[in-house]
């Protein structure tokens, strides 16, 4: 089966993943009799690939976090296990695996055991929707962004459950803070993404990326793009419970907040989920505002643009995401923590009105098609047609 070719510019480089996908699809079709078996095999393969990717990613992020922290603090970070400590995450995981699983005597066992799973799954599922490259996206879905927003807000359920079921007052305080904080900041984050959706005219991540061919929304949408990007960065940092919004863990106040009582792999799941969340929000931010896997194109600089096109799309994507992840880590090792009432005041009295304002301005701009860098071809209609796409697993 010919892979559905994304209608991209001919100069666009997408050789790397298209080929892989088409070879895989051909092999599967040759060896499996029924079309639904092919689909099932694809689902299993995608899940395995994502699970592998997620765990390696979390390890890399842990290592990077420790190194970044180290260099911010005028020390070296892990240096002992392997050259420059690159095997430190493996040692860390082994340590976590070898730890004793502790369940407090008075804990609500079912919920206590379920909570880390819930948080982890919520983050993990979101990974499937992220467009790493033109055809490297496990689930392509016409309302992908909406779905990701919905799934990712399930993570807070896990945190609330963990805090409540631990039967520890510190954990409960942390969980209550989490509930208030994450639900509040989700509004701003969603509104900010909505601005991107208004400009892109689609909820499909793939379409959102393609809408940025003429320029990334962060600068193509006049000023609003930049403001929205900043709002989303702030709100998403709060959603991930990262400093300066880490009052949920608040180690100096609540010992460890909602996961005080957790140990071993259950703790590791919260830990992994936090790092995956950082990656996911950065990926969404890169996709919606920074053009996803789109290469950077500068006006009439043909030579530079050609060179940028030669860089594979997934490198562009991971480059952008890494930069955003670094910024989030930078926050963490620079800022102190806000107090709970200041945090809420900031969201409800400043960030959310600002998000609404940008949304209104964005709607006006999108309706009047007022963009910087007007594309050579006529502007895309505001509503994405997408008539031929089946709703799920389109690109496999």
């Amino acid at each position, binding site marked *: 089966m010919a892979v559905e070719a994304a209608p991209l510019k001919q100069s666009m480089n997408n050789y790397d993943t298209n080929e892989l996908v088409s070879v895989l699809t051909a092999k599967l079709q040759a060896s499996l009799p029924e079309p639904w078996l092919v689909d099932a095999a694809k689902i299993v393969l995608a899940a395995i690939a994502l699970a592998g990717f997620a765990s390696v990613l979390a390890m890399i992020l842990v290592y990077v976090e420790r190194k970044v922290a180290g260099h911010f603090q005028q020390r070296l970070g892990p240096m002992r296990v392997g050259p420059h400590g690159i095997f430190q995450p493996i040692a860390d995981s082994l340590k976590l695996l070898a730890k004793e699983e502790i369940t407090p005597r008075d804990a609500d066992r079912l919920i206590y055991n379920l909570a880390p799973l819930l948080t982890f799954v919520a983050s993990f599922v979101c990974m499937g929707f992220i467009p790493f490259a033109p055809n490297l996206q496990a689930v392509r879905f016409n309302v992908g962004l909406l779905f990701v927003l919905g799934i990712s807000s399930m993570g807070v359920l896990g945190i609330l459950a963990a805090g409540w079921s631990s039967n520890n007052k510190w954990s409960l305080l942390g969980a209550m803070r989490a509930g208030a904080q994450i639900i509040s900041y989700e509004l701003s984050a969603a509104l900010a993404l909505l601005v991107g959706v208004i400009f892109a005219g689609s909820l499909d991540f793939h379409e959102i990326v393609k809408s940025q061919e003429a320029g990334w929304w962060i600068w193509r949408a006049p000023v609003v793009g930049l403001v929205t990007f900043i709002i989303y960065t702030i709100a998403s940092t709060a959603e991930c419970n990262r*400093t300066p919004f880490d*009052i949920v863990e608040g180690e*100096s106040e609540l010992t460890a907040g909602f996961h005080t009582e957790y140990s071993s792999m259950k703790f590791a799941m919260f830990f992994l989920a936090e790092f995956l969340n950082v990656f996911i929000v950065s990926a969404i931010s890169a996709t919606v505002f920074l053009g996803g896997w789109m290469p950077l194109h500068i006006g009439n600089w043909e030579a530079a643009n050609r060179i940028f096109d030669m860089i594979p799309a997934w490198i562009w994507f991971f480059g952008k995401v890494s930069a955003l992840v670094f910024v989030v880590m930078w926050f963490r090792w620079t*800022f102190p923590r*806000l107090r709970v009432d200041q945090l809420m005041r900031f969201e409800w009295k400043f960030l959310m009105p600002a998000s609404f304002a940008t949304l209104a301005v964005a709607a006006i701009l999108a309706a009047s098609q007022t963009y910087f860098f007007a594309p050579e071809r006529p502007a895309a209609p505001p509503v994405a047609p997408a008539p031929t796409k089946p709703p799920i697993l389109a690109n496999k």
Partner: protein
Amino acid sequence: MNAPVPVESPVADTYQDYFINMGPQHPSTHGVLRLVVKLAGETVLGVSPHMGYVHRGIEKMGEAQTAMQFTHLTSRLDYLSAHMNNWAWAMVVEQALGVQVPERAEYLRVIMSELTRISSHQLWWGVFGMDLGAFTPFLYAFRDREKVNDIFEKTCGTRLTMNYIVPGGVMEDADADFEKDTRAFLEYFKPLIEEYEQLLSGNIIVQERTKGVAVLPPELAKSYGVTGPTLRASGVDYDVRKNHPYGVYPRLSFQTALATEGDSWARYKVRLEEMRQSIKIISQALDQMPKSGPVRAKLPAVLRIPPGRYLSRVETARGELAIFLVGDGKPLPYRVKIRSPNFSNLSAFPAIIKGWRVADIVTAMSTFDLVIPDIDR
């Protein structure tokens, strides 16, 4: 913006209040202090400190040891002000025995004490950042504190409990590089206070978290016997080094760091200013110090405390430390009483924290700069 919730207000009554134990094992009590906190949601209705987890009976041990032996225990009172504690004890014994301390020893005492004050405030600054949730200042502070510790290690052999200042003078003369090292440290550290300011003071979150929070009014502070930077931040100009001068402090010119607001921010600024003043004191003392000479007066082999009552007081990094000594002519003191600054400072804390949030307990207590072994003794 920053204002406490009135605890008698209906807001507090609509919740069912509950108690929570902060400590004895808690990352922000900085030791084994236990605070029983009464909360309504996140609002603090009351705090009652429970002490005694590191009570070692140091005062009683003082009655079972000779004056020279007890010097080593005083280092363990407030381990971040070890030199000052030693000095307080040395001074009260010298007062009892009528010993004149050699001049070089007096200067060494001042320099060591002020270095201790700097290193103590460095540690406080780092920990304060950590209590606010910023981990990086902690490591910056420790980087610089290492330099002070190196100076101590070269001269005293130890880095924390120095036992350097003893009755009659100091234990040994300073090592050959002492003056050079200390001057080098002062040069190194002077610009770094500005770095400290940049890293924390200018941060809007730090200011929001501290300005106007947990205000300690001067009358309340005086009535609880609060001393040290905590008192001076409330606008009360009381510094033992100025009001009851000891050692060679009268010969050195410095200002007491003062602020009037009495909130966490004022306490923060006062401590940063004290570091600058300590640098001034040390460089003056280094200039005036005799380059050589005896550092320890001749003392009798057995120190019999003559009958009578003796009192010494010094300004440690946390406030006024007073040691009261009663002798009855025997080698062992009849009674040793230690007035620790931290105990009085902590006693004022529950009065000012009502109506603030859980997170404010941590920041406000951090600006009180408590050392728990000094409270329990």
